[in-house]
Each structure stands twice: as structure tokens, then as C-alpha cells.
């Protein structure tokens, strides 16, 4: 079956691992467990009439101690920039990561994900700040499950085009 590698990138604690877990296992865990290095999962999906195996590479969130290792995106068909809607700084980090990735690997399909939609009333990230980039954007809640599958399938569809 066709395989597509998709990488999850973003600041630490934005919910990358939770999004993958919600998508692959339909589970959400309140506990925060930081990702070390890379966590690799797979999920078979059907987009239209085509079946594809998504290899989901959940890359450790960038923090003050460690930078994203862009070489982990080698061979990726696309990536997902994850932002925590409650932390304005996480959008800045996503913008910075997108520039670095594009700078080193060239143009790759990606989507921007504003996670933690269940806490929408506490969001710091302004719609205007997101809109100014003109990127394909999804709102998700790994906790409630809303928007998660749609987002992964939308990217998968884009990769199959």
C-alpha cells in the first residue's frame, strides 16, 4: 500500500502527541508526557478510492534546550504545524519552524493546526494573526476529538493529489 510520511512539528506542549493518539487510537489522556526524539505511529486511511498508510512522525516539541532536528523530516510528504490556541507564543514558534523547514527542505505541503479548541474562550492566538499567513488552517481539539480526523484526512488528500 502507498505510504506517506507526515511529521508533526511545533512548540512543546501544544498537543502533537495527543492529536496523533486521538487520530490513531481514539484516546485522549489528560497527563502531559513530553516526547523524546521521535514517536512513530502508523494509520491506514482511505481517501476517496485510494488507500494509504500514513506514517506519523511526532517530532519532539522545540524548547529552550533543544531545537527541532530538521533532518527528521527527510522523506516526508508533508507536515503539520501545531499551535496551542491558548499560547500566543506557540504561533510565533510555528511561524519560525515553517521558515526553517522551508529553508532547508524547500516547499513541502503543510497545514496549520490550532489545537485546544475546547478551550476557545481562553485562546490568546488572534484570528487575524493566523489569517495574515494565508496558510490552510484547521481548528482541532485532541481532547474532544473535534476536527482531528478531518485535518489528517485533508492533508492526506492533499498529498495524494
Amino acid at each position, binding site marked *: 500500500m502507498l505510504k506517506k510520511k507526515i511529521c508533526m512539528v511545533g512548540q512543546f506542549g501544544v498537543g502533537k502527541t495527543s492529536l496523533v493518539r486521538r487520530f490513531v487510537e481514539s484516546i485522549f489522556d489528560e497527563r502531559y508526557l513530553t516526547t523524546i526524539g521521535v514517536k512513530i*505511529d502508523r494509520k491506514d486511511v482511505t481517501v476517496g478510492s485510494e488507500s494509504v498508510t500514513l506514517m506519523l512522525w511526532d517530532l519532539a516539541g522545540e524548547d529552550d534546550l533543544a531545537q527541532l532536528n530538521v533532518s527528521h523530516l527527510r522523506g516526508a510528504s508533508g507536515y503539520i504545524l501545531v499551535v496551542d490556541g491558548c499560547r500566543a507564543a506557540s504561533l510565533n514558534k510555528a511561524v519560525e519552524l515553517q521558515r526553517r523547514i522551508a529553508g532547508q527542505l524547500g516547499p513541502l505541503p503543510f497545514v496549520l493546526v490550532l489545537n485546544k479548541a475546547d478551550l476557545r474562550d481562553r485562546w490568546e492566538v488572534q484570528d487575524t494573526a493566523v489569517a495574515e499567513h494565508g496558510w490552510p488552517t484547521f481548528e482541532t481539539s485532541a481532547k474532544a476529538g473535534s476536527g482531528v480526523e478531518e485535518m489528517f484526512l485533508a492533508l492526506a488528500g492533499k498529498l495524494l493529489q
Partner: protein
Amino acid sequence: MNLLTALGFAVFERSGEASFRLLGPAPHWLPAGSVTEAFPFLEVFLPDAEEFWADRGARTALYSDLWTQGGATGDELHFCAIAVAGERKLLLIECAEQRFQQARSFVQYAHEASLAREQIAKLTQAKTEFLARMSHEIRTPMNALLGMVELLSETPLNDEQRKYLQVFQRAGDNLLNVINDILDFSKVEAGQIDLENIEFDLAQVIQEAIEIAAVRARAKGLALVNRIQPNVPTLLIGDPGRLRQILLNLLGNATKFTDRGELTVLVETDSDQPVPGALHFAVSDTGIGIPADRLSTIFDSFSQADASTTRKYGGTGLGLAISKRFVELMGGKIWAESKPGAGSTMHFTARFSVADAPKPVAEGSAPVVIRNRGLRILLADDSEENRFLIRGYLKDSGCIIDEVENGAEAVEQFKQRAYDIVLLDAEMPVLDGYSATREIRALGATPIFLLTAHALREARARSFEAGCTDHLTKPIKKATLLEAINKAVPAASVSDRIHVPVEAWLKPVVGGYLEKRRGDVRKLRAALDCSDYDTIRMLGHQMCGTGGGYGFEPITEIGSALEESALASDSARMRASIEDLDRYLNNIQVE
């Protein structure tokens, strides 16, 4: 190889192009299939490994990052790949559980600490915003309340009414102090509060605290006794406001928890600190007392002796915590002694400096008055009560006050005429005081006072950043406002005033005449803007013929100049004449 397997390694040797052969037994965690199929992570590691094997340099091994994936049993396992240097191209896959857990515990701690710091910063910001809003909401009505008390005190009152009013005023002032202290509580916690260091009379501070506390104590039939030992120096240097607040807090609690008997305030020198100015205070009551096991915790924030205490007696439980901080800042300590049912004594010590000589008594000092008569003041405030208060404060000052209700109106009004002072409320509809300050500041250097109920330092900083001359915090006292005006408009400005004697029979019509001329200034400016020199000539002609008749010769001269310059189409001269007229009208003082 068995040893390596036992240690958690699977060992492979590169046997061909992207082909690896397992050496030794397969560990139980090794997924089925080729090594590259079993471990997708290798697709990013092997290119680096190939480079390493080709040119290893001085290194003996190349380690990959850790990765996590499902193992042969379906459990989540953590791995690391190692390319080993040597004649043979060996690839080790380590099941690195222990290393992973160590790395995770370290990074997890760092991330949780970082997230907690972000959360604390957000909460602190929210608290500051809440305090600023609360400050504004409380101070706005307090401004009207205390201002009216001040105006009331200037009206004829009998002795009894005056005494009530004094208690009202002092209680209001003290309430404001309490509000200020609560607002500052977070800064106290952060160690950012500054104590004042001014000369004060200890006996007076204690007397004031007792007078305020006595109102409630008397209502409960409690006696209030004040004992200052004779060897206590009463003229001190320190923070009388904070000391008063500590005493009021302790006396307030003593009154609250005592139904019969008496309250005593004792002040003596601190026997443990034999230095001048080190004092020991004790506030005793004959109330319900405090259980022994709670004596040490009552000074914690939001703590009361019993949850039922809050229900029965009210209070935030913050007062003793604030007092404790103040006492510590004064170089002392606070503690409690109590026998349940027999009463409590709250002790505290504090260190002050002893003042050298008594200050001249301020009693009988002259009230502040505006030095410059006839100042023209622009006042913008959407609250009718606050405008009424400012009018009341300035009613005998000889100032002319133009009132508007928002910042946009203030800017427009300012463009119409020159003002000596601009008073702007910070929070107004349409255009707030900060924005109005910026716009007016761009038009000239007139002193601008921002009147705000925001007491936090950030609000002051915001005012000055906008360009105001001074920031007056509501409730504003009359003397504070008048002193600020005197300071901003030096006496020298008086010399700009033009005193014009007017015959008595003309006085009733002079006001209307001058007002029409002020209207002419607006018409002249508008006419100049659209090069309507005929209108300028006509207005100039009218002024030329009337000014002298009222005793205003300069108006005649300016009118003549306007007429001539309009005929000559000399716009620069017309503009100068219009400004001369505006200045003359603003500075004129009819006598």
C-alpha cells in the same frame, strides 16, 4: 553477541546495498521483517550512518536520537540506533528504556516548569488587570463621595455635624488606604512595595487609629484604652500610613471578636532591641480568643481561625497577612498570644528613626489657593458628578472652565482656543484621556492633567507615556488639584494677563462683546483657510470700529490690521493678526 543481546542490543551487519544481516539471536522485542521495515526511523539515520562509515574521523560510534514505536509485542518501546566504526559496518539497535526514562524525566521537568511559569505569568497579568479594574470601579464613586465631604466641610456646620464629618472623612481616607494596600498586595508578596520614610507624630497616628476604631467599639459598648509609655519617643521617621493600617487592622479584629470588656493599645520600647526607635506595640482585647493550634497560621494569607469565623464575622483573612508583611518591612515581627474565651493580644515590633526636633505645627496653615486668577481650563469628563466636583473645587478660584464630555470633544475644543490647563478623565467614551492627551500634546505644550481612578504604577506610567504633565489619582483632594495647577502654571504667567479697567455701566455687555469676538476668531480662521478675504476684511472693519468704544484698543488695532492685510491679500499678516486677537482675548482680565 549473546552478551549484547542480554544488554538490550540487536546487532546487524551491513551485508549489501541497504541490506543488513542479524548477528546472533533475535531479542524478543525485535519486530519481524527486515531491519529497515522494522524500524522506519532508520530512513533518516542510515544516510548519516553511511557517511560515518565512509569517513568516521576520530569517532568510534554514531548515535541516533531516541525514538519510540510499537515493538514486537505491540507495546510502546524506545530505541536508539548506533553505527559502529570498524572494518565491518555494524549497526546496533538498542532497546533504550532506561536512557529514555532518564531523558524524559529531565525534559518533562523542564517543560512542566516552563508551562507553570507561563501560567503564573498569565495569572499575574490577569490579577493586575483585575486590580486595575477594581481600583477604577471603587475609586470613581469614592472620588465623588470624598469630594462632596470636602465641599460639605466648607459650608456652615454646627460642632456636632463637623465632628461627624471629620470621622466620615477620616474613615473615607482610611478606606482608600486599605484599597491601596489591597491593590499593592501582590507587590508586597513580590517584595516590591516601598515604605515611606517621613517624619510623623506617633501619638497622633495612634490617636487617629483609635478614633476610627472607636466608632465601632463604642457601638458595641467596648472601652478603648491607649497607653504610650513615657520613655517612648513620639516624633519618629517612618511610614505612618502603614503603621496606622496595622493598628487599624488589629483594632478592627479586636473589635470584631470582642462583645464586652475593653480594647487596649500599648506602646513601649522594645526590650529585645535596645536602640532608639525600636518599639513594641500590643493590641489586647477581652474577646473570644484564638485556639492555640491556630495561633501560628492566622498570619497566613486568606486564613482565619476557623471557617465558621468567616461566616460569622466576615472579613477576607487578608488583613493580618498584609500587616505581617508591613511589620517585616519595618524590621519587626508580629505574633499572637491568646486564651480562648479570655481574649487575645496581638504583638508587633517595628524600628523607626527618631526625629531630631519637632516640626513647626502645621495647624492654622493657610488653605491652598490658585495663584493665577482667570485661568482658562478645559475639563473633559463623561461623569457629571466628577465635573460638578471639579467645578466646586475651582468655584472661588476665578478660573474659567469649559466642560466637554469626551476626549474627541476636548481635542476639538482645544483647537478652538488657547487654554492654560487641560483636565482629562482617563476613561471616556469616543476618545479616552490617553489618546486625547496625545492629540492635544501634538498641538501644543499646555499642561495636561490626566485624572484617573487607576492607582497602579502602570497607570501612571501610561499617563506619562501619553504625554501628560501630571497624573492625579482619584479621589482627588481639592488641595492636591490646586497645588498641581499652581505648580503647572507658574506665577510668571500672571504677567501675561492683560488687566483692562471697564466702566461700570459697560460691564453688563462687555462679556457678550468679548464672546462674540471669540466667535470671530473661529470665523476668521475658517475664512483664512478658504481664502475668503472679504469676510476677514469685513470682520476686521467691525472690530476696528467697536473695540475702542468698549475700552479694548488692541481689538481696534488688530481689526485695522486685519482689514488692511485682507485688502492686500497678505495671508501671513492676516494669520498673525488672528493669533494676536486669540491671545489677547484669552489673556484679557476685565476689572
